[in-house]
C-alpha cells in the first residue's frame, strides 16, 4: 500500500465538494425538525431536485435556471408533505415514506430520456491570484459557486435560528406547539414555510449531485444520501455548525473508501462501501448514548401532531 499517493490537499478539497449534497439536505431538514416536524421524505425531494435541475440545465444551458429548478422542485414536493401533515393531519412517518417512494418513481419517469447525457459544465467563481496561493488556494478558492453558497447558508441558518425573532418563534413552535399557538403564533403557517425551506435545500442538494458532482442523471442516483442527511441532523444534535462536521465526516469516509481502493489496500470493496452507513450508526449510538441531554436537545414537539384548539 502507498498512502503517499493520497494528496491531503486534494483529498480535503474533494471531501468538501463530496459533502455538499448531504450538507444542504441536512441543513434544510434541521430547520424543519427545529419547527417540530419530522420529514422522512428527504431522499425523494433530493432526487426530484436532481432530475429537475439536470433537465433544466441541459435544456436551457443556464446553471442559474438549473439551480432554481432544483430548489423549486424540492420545495413543491415538500409542499405536498406539508399540506398532508399540517392541514390534513396525516402521520408524518408514513407521509415521509410516501414522499420518498413517489420522488424516486416520478424522477425515474421524467428522467428516462436523459440518462447518461453530460450536462454543460458548472462555472466556478474567479478569485484571481488567490486561487494560485500555495496551500490556501487549493483549500479555499477552487470550488464552484454552490459550495460557497452552502457554507453561507449554514451561517445564515445558524444566525436566523439563534439571533432573530422569527427564528425564536420557529424554535418555540418546535418546542411546544400548544404554548406557541396560545401566544398567537400561526403554527401551521410557520411549519409550512419551514417544510418548504427544507424541501428547497434537499432539492438543491440533489441538484448539486446531478449537475456538478457526478455530473449526469442516473435513476436512483441519490443512493441513500437523503437518509444519511436525516441521521446527520441527529448526529449534529440540531446545531447547524455541527452539520458541517458530520457532512465532512461522511464525505471523508466515502472518499477514503474510494482512495483506499485506488491505493490497492486489499479489503473487499463491499465492506468499504458499508463503512459510511456503519459509521453513521456508530455516530448515532455515541450521540444518543453519551448525552442524557439528547431528549432536551431534540425539539419538544418533534413529530407530534398539532390540533388547533379554538
Amino acid at each position: 500500500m502507498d498512502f503517499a499517493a493520497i494528496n491531503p490537499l486534494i483529498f480535503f478539497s474533494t471531501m468538501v465538494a463530496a459533502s455538499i449534497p448531504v450538507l444542504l439536505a441536512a441543513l434544510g431538514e434541521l430547520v424543519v425538525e427545529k419547527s417540530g416536524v419530522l420529514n422522512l421524505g428527504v431522499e425523494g425531494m433530493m432526487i426530484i431536485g436532481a432530475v429537475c435541475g439536470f433537465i433544466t440545465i441541459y435544456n436551457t444551458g443556464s446553471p442559474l435556471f438549473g439551480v432554481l429548478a432544483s430548489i423549486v422542485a424540492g420545495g413543491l414536493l415538500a409542499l405536498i408533505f406539508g399540506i398532508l401533515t399540517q392541514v390534513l393531519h396525516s402521520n408524518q412517518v408514513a407521509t415521509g415514506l410516501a414522499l420518498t417512494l413517489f420522488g424516486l418513481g416520478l424522477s425515474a419517469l421524467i428522467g428516462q430520456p436523459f440518462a447518461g447525457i453530460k450536462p454543460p459544465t458548472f462555472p466556478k467563481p474567479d478569485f484571481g491570484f488567490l486561487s494560485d496561493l500555495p496551500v490556501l488556494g487549493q483549500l479555499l478558492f477552487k470550488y464552484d459557486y454552490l459550495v460557497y453558497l452552502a457554507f453561507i447558508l449554514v451561517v445564515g441558518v445558524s444566525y436566523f435560528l439563534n439571533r432573530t425573532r422569527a427564528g425564536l418563534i420557529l424554535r418555540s413552535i418546535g418546542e411546544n406547539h400548544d404554548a406557541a399557538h396560545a401566544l398567537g403564533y400561526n403554527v401551521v403557517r410557520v411549519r409550512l414555510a419551514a417544510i418548504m425551506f427544507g424541501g428547497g435545500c434537499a432539492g438543491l442538494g440533489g441538484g448539486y449531485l446531478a449537475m456538478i458532482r457526478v455530473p449526469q442523471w442516473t435513476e436512483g442516483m441519490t443512493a441513500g444520501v437523503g437518509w444519511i442527511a436525516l441521521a446527520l441532523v441527529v448526529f449534529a444534535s440540531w446545531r447547524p455548525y455541527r452539520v458541517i462536521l458530520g457532512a465532512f465526516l461522511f464525505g471523508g469516509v466515502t472518499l477514503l473508501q474510494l482512495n483506499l481502493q485506488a491505493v490497492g489496500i486489499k479489503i473487499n470493496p463491499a465492506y468499504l462501501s458499508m463503512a459510511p452507513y456503519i459509521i453513521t450508526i456508530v455516530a448515532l449510538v455515541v450521540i444518543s448514548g453519551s448525552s442524557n441531554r439528547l431528549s432536551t436537545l431534540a425539539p419538544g414537539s418533534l413529530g407530534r401532531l398539532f390540533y388547533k384548539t379554538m
Partner: protein
Amino acid sequence: MLVFERRREPSKFWTAITPVLAVLVTLIAGGILFAILGKNPVEAIKTIFWAPIFDPNLSAYARPQILVKAAPLVLIAIGLSIGFKANIWNIGAEGQYIMGAILGGGVALAFYPLEAWWIFPLMIVSGIVGGIAWAMIPALLKIKFKTNEILVSLMLVYVSEHFLASVSLGLLRNPDGVGFPGSRNLQHYVSASNGELFAGTGIHLGVIVAFVSIFALYGLIRFHRLGFQVRVTGQSVRISRFAGVNPNLMIIFCLAAGGGLAGLAGIFELSGPAGLLSIDFNVGYGFTAIIVAFLGRLNPFGIALAALLMSLTYIGGDLAQFMLNLPAAAIQALQGMLLFFLLSMDFLSQYRISIKHWARG
C-alpha cells in the same frame, strides 16, 4: 363556512371506504401523470391493473403469479403491522429479508450435496433467525442507547445490500459457476428446494404460510394478551406501563416479529422463485410492504387485500415495461401516490365536515 370537527372515534364507514377511494383516485391521477409524460394513459393503466387478471392471453400465467408475489408482501407487512401498531417504526425490513435469505441459504449450501429431510426445516428456521438477528441490532440499540430505530434499521438495509453483494460474489459463490456471479441454485438442490405445490402455477409453500399468517395475526391481536399490550403501547408508552407492559420487551417483540417474518419471506423467496443469491436478489418487497401495511389499515385481512393489489401493480408494471417501455420505477410513483391519497383521505375518517354559520359577538 366549512367547519371541521374532530370525531371522538374515527368513523368506521370512512375507514373502510377510503382505501377503495384512494385506489380509484390513484388510477385517475396516474392516468393524468402518464398523459403528461406522453404515454397513452388508458393503455398504461389498463396494462398495469387490468391485463394481468382479465387479458385471456396473460391471465393463466399472471393470476397465480399475483399470489406468488403477494406472499412476501403479506408476510413482511403482517410483521411490520405489529410494530406500527405499537409505534415502533421498523423500516428496514428489506435488510432483514436479505439477511434471512443469506443465513438460510448459507446454512442449506453448507450441507450441499448432502440430501436429508431435515435440511429444509433447518434452512427455514435459519432464515427466520437471520431476519430476527438483523432486527435485533436496532432493537437493542434503541433499548440501550435510545437510538432512533427508523434510522438504524434503514442504514442496515444499505449494509445488508453490500453484504449480499460480497457473499454472492465471494463466500457463497457457486464453485461450479464458471465465473457466473451468484450462489448455487437451490431449486436444483432437492433437499433445500421450495418447489411448486401445484404444477404450472409457481405457488410454493411460502404462499400457504403467508395466508396462514393472516389468521395468526388476527388471533394474536384479537384474542391474545400480547395484542392488547401492543395496542396500548401504541396509544402511550406511559399508560402501557400501568397495564403491566415492559416497554423494552415490547420493542424486542415488535422488531423480532417484523424481522423474523421478513427473514422467512426472504428464505422462501430464495429457495423458491428466486433460486439463487445474486446482487439483484432483493427487489424492494421490504419497502412496498410498508405501504401494504398502511393501505391494509394494519388489519390482517386489509393487508391481504392490499398485498394482492400491490402484487398486481408489480406484474402489471412488468407488462407495461415490456409492452409500453415504461420504466420499472413508474410503479413506485403510483405506489407513492396511492399512499398520499390514502393518508390525505384519512382526514375524512378523523373529521366531520359540516357547514356552520358563526354567531357574531
